[in-house]
């Protein structure tokens, strides 16, 4: 019987297999950041163990760094200590680090692909659940905890029980204005936040193949929001073209050998998946969340659901609690929901294409007077590219704030936070209670919806806006 390509990647990394034990899997790339690593480094030190492969390890500062005043020392002493701890650990153990202010600094899941370090068929781990992002290249990439971070530092391996496989096939073609973010929000709403538990998802089908690398990363990024360990997309010409010429991509004969291998990373025709889900791209419209987990989403054209209509008592209770936290009334059209803040950024939607798409919407328009809009590039390279294209000018002319790279308001570990009761439209990945700041309320959206919402002052799609330069922003509702 044939194999799925996830299984092929797994098999190619088995160091040791013994009956009744987990497989010992080799890890090709270990990404490290300041938040989930200090205890792991301490553990190594206590046990007197070295880092086995510093040359397969790379670190960046992203989770709690400020996005303004980055040339100054971090003012929060607890954040500063954590960042300084990473610097000390990396210097001592010979790990390459891109600190704040460095041209390559940025969100860990943005810089790996950007540097060409993420390649098809690799195993990639990081102490961060959105490591699934790298699956867009056909890598088996998944988030791990701090104990496992220590394990990888010490051994460059992990003991793992094989994941089950799930195919998510997206047929047809996305309509204009419908993006990868809408696809993945629809997938999560369909299978639920626990639907992917124990699985690695392979995204396939015409609509997936048509996506750019940036868009594929958005899809794979949120696999964890469906509970899956990893999401993968088989590498193809789009993948190879993205990688060609990147700093760490193979060259010459190595490139040819690599591409030949990468082409073999396809699911065999006679392979079977443990579960299969099919979605029709043609029927998808922009998606937004109304609740407090990423599965609680609906098409933007819909209304806030009525929990009374839920058959399952647990789902009803969850929806009631979510609407209470979100301060929403059942039956309200989603487009009537006004927001205070728009956040454009994160490892989900902080790449150059995301900024270009949003800039196109705000060009010649103004962010509504009641809204603050934060634009936070995913990396300093993305920032530089955007500035070279003049995107920063478009955003600031519209009244948005243009920041430096980091995780920022996706998780509110740095000063970029929602105030209690404040409501956001956010291109990030989690709408959990308090995720973007204590008492904050989050609606997950695509970059296009984020930009249109910033202009309209309420949840909106670009098509809802008056032509640029004709109507004042605040008359939209």
């Amino acid at each position: 019987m044939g194999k799925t390509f996830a299984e092929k990647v797994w098999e190619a990394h088995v160091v040791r297999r013994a009956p009744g034990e987990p497989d010992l899997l080799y890890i090709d790339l270990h990404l490290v950041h300041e938040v989930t690593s200090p205890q792991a480094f301490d553990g190594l030190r206590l046990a007197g163990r070295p880092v086995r492969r510093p040359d397969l390890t790379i670190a960046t500062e992203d989770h709690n760094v400020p996005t303004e005043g980055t040339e100054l020392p971090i003012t929060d002493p607890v954040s500063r200590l954590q960042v300084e701890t990473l610097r000390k650990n990396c210097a001592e153990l010979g790990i390459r680090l891109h600190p704040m202010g460095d041209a390559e600094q940025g969100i860990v899941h943005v810089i790996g692909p950007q540097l060409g370090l993420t390649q098809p068929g690799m195993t990639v781990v990081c102490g961060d659940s959105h490591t699934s992002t790298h699956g867009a290249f056909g890598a088996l990439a998944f988030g791990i905890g701090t104990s496992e971070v220590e394990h990888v530092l010490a051994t460059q391996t992990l003991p793992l029980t094989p994941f089950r496989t799930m195919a998510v096939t997206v047929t047809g073609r996305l309509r204009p204005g419908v993006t990868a973010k809408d696809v993945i929000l629809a997938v999560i709403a369909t299978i639920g936040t626990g639907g992917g538990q124990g699985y690695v998802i392979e995204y396939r089908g015409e609509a997936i193949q048509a996506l750019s690398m940036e868009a594929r990363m958005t899809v794979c990024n949120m696999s964890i929001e469906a509970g899956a360990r990893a999401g993968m997309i088989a590498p193809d010409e789009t993948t190879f073209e993205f990688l060609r010429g990147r700093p760490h991509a193979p060259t010459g004969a190595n490139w040819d050998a690599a591409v030949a291998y990468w082409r073999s990373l396809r699911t065999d025709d006679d392979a079977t998946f443990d579960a299969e889900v099919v979605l029709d791209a043609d029927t998808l419209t922009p998606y937004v969340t109304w609740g407090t987990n990423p599965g609680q989403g609906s098409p933007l054209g819909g209304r806030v659901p009525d929990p009374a209509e839920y058959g399952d008592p647990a789902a009803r209770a969850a929806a009631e609690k979510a609407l209470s936290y979100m301060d929403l009334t059942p039956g309200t059209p989603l487009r009537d929901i006004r927001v205070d803040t728009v956040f454009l950024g994160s490892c989900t939607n902080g790449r150059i294409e995301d900024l270009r798409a949003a800039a196109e919407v705000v060009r010649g328009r103004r962010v509504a007077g009641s809204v603050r809009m934060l634009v936070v590039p995913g990396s300093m390279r993305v920032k530089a590219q955007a500035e070279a294209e003049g995107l920063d000018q478009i955003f600031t002319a519209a009244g948005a704030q243009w920041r430096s790279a980091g995780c920022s308001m996706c998780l509110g570990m740095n000063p970029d936070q929602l105030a209690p009761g404040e409501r956001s439209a956010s291109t990030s990945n989690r709408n959990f209670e308090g995720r973007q700041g204590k008492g904050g309320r989050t609606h997950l959206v695509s970059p296009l919806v984020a930009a249109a919402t910033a202009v309209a002052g309420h949840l909106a799609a670009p098509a809802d806006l008056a032509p640029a330069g004709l109507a004042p922003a605040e008359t939209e509702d």
Partner: protein
Amino acid sequence: MEKFTTHTGRAVPLRRGNVDTDQIIPAVYLKRVTRTGFADGLFSAWRANEPDFVLNNPRYDGASVLVAGPDFGTGSSREHAVWALQDYGFRVVLSPRFADIFRGNSLKSGLLTVLVPQDVVDELWDRVEADPSLAVTVDLERRQVRYADRVVDFELDDYTRWRLMEGLDDIGLTLRHVAAVSEFERTRPAWLPTTM
């Protein structure tokens, strides 16, 4: 890691599903560089904002078994969630379904996460609310949860059970196979990137 064989304690009924790790411990507590001292962060938003939240009820003070709804530990991979539960005094979490990364983290750190069916969770919620002094025993050796006259078998693979019962360090176990790792490294293709 501390050995785990059997544990008997009182329980806390957490009548919520889909408890994400941002709720278990908000990101603001993740700036610390230590592995202990996270008890104050455990469910801190719910403890602060919801007077009726179960951990605010002194009837459950000193309990060590958390009984939660399905999909416990979703979201962020932060192992701090496990450490916070342990620092607060929990040794065991019972739930019909755990998120994968949280489950992995818990079993690496010696917090026993036990899968039990929803009807067992429902029954435990009712019983514990009626009598918070109910003793709940989690017996890893026999893979059983016992309370009152009830005995509920649970599944856990032999390898993980052995590791927990012996309190073994995973890294130490892997380092026994370091020769196999070196051998594997000799076969890795030349095109694979290094970070240097």
